[in-house]
């Protein structure tokens, strides 16, 4: 279940996911949500269940992180393969576009 909760509750219940502006159309405008997940695969599954279509914006159908999408785990840039990265209650995950394009 995904909800908008206090930081205290995050520590107790799950992972805080910060949603970039470009993807807030999926989350009904919420800039952060909380999911229960043991790893990034589970996190993306939980996001997709709550906000259909959002996973495809982060990962492509081949299971790769989109080239210019970054995921930070507790402020550290994660490296592939993303799905296996372990998470723990209280962790914070940022989804952000990298500086790219023109």
């Amino acid at each position, binding site marked *: 279940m995904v909800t908008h909760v206090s930081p205290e509750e995050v520590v107790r219940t799950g992972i805080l996911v910060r949603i970039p502006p470009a993807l807030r159309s999926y989350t009904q405008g919420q800039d952060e949500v909380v999911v229960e997940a043991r790893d990034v695969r589970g996190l993306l599954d939980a996001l997709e269940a709550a906000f259909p279509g959002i996973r495809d914006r982060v990962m492509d*159908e*081949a299971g790769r992180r989109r080239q210019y999408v970054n995921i930070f785990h507790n402020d550290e840039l994660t490296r592939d393969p993303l799905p296996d990265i372990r998470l723990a209650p209280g962790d914070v995950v940022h989804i952000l576009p990298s500086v790219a*394009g023109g």
Partner: protein
Amino acid sequence: MVLAVGTKKGGFLFHSADRRKWSVAGPHMPGRAVYHMIVDPRDGRTVYAGAPMTAEPWGPAVYRGRIGSELKSSASAPKFKEGSGLSVTRIWHIEPGPADEPETIYAGVEPAALFRSEDRGDTWEGFDALNYHPTRKDWQPGNGGLCLHSVLVDPRKPKHIVIGISAVGTFETKDGGLSWTTENKGVRAEFMPNRYPEMGQCVHKLAWDAAGDGSIFHQNHCGTYHRGPSGGAWTEVSKGLPSDFGFPIAAHPHEKRTAFVAPLTADVNRVFPKGQMAVWKTSNAGERWRRSTKGLPGPNAFMGVLREGMAVDAGDPLGVYVGTNTGQLFASRDEGDSWKMIADFLPPILSVQAAEAR
């Protein structure tokens, strides 16, 4: 009349009641590279576009909406099968389906593949026999990417489809996509050791000849071609043109054997020859070409036109439209004899399409 114009920074709709004075609406999908945008000619009011979702990093989407309303992404975008190792990175072309299937559309994508939707883009089915063709391992991208950009659906027999892929060539199916043949006989590939390989030709754009008998016009990286109704080898018809390189080709919708091209200097110099923008017209399937420059910029106009940058309407006399990669949009109300600039300072124009608004 409405013109759908895709640009590097959004899509625009130009409206006119008389094809003299034009008003503009947009940008739709601002800031995004709209590789193709169309008004569905079957209803004259549904707009489709291929563009990144929100912004470039987030993957491609098909947009849909009525003229005058906000375009929104459809429920899903074309996708390869899980486990294929492939992923769609860009929508290059959206093609309306047959007239009696008003909710059917086709999408050509990068990396090269063809998809079909029967619900106006909400769900998609891939043409597996093409998308996972045995030769796919040998497909190499052209300079613009490995893109499937031309989709011709035969209005007489919708199971007959011809598609073009840059630097791979032309494929054809007559059984609705269950099997595909390479259709590149007679087409040069000057960048290959064998100049006439079975596959690897860099098709830039295909267009049905208005003859309605299955004849096709073809602008290639290496020449301009025409293929007759019985299929088989292409006939090169570059003679009489200033070069064998160009991107768009647009066929007259009513007059058979009639088409327009916009040749550029060469593949290593993709601007109009001698800085004079010109559109060339044939009325006999390329036996002869006639140059038109009246109202077009030059002699110091060093720009080009991309593969989707030329369109015709269905008017009488015919309207022809050309958008440049420097953001000018030109229109002709007299079958290409003379031109008038109807917009300037647009972002680089990626696509132009004309339809009768209803």
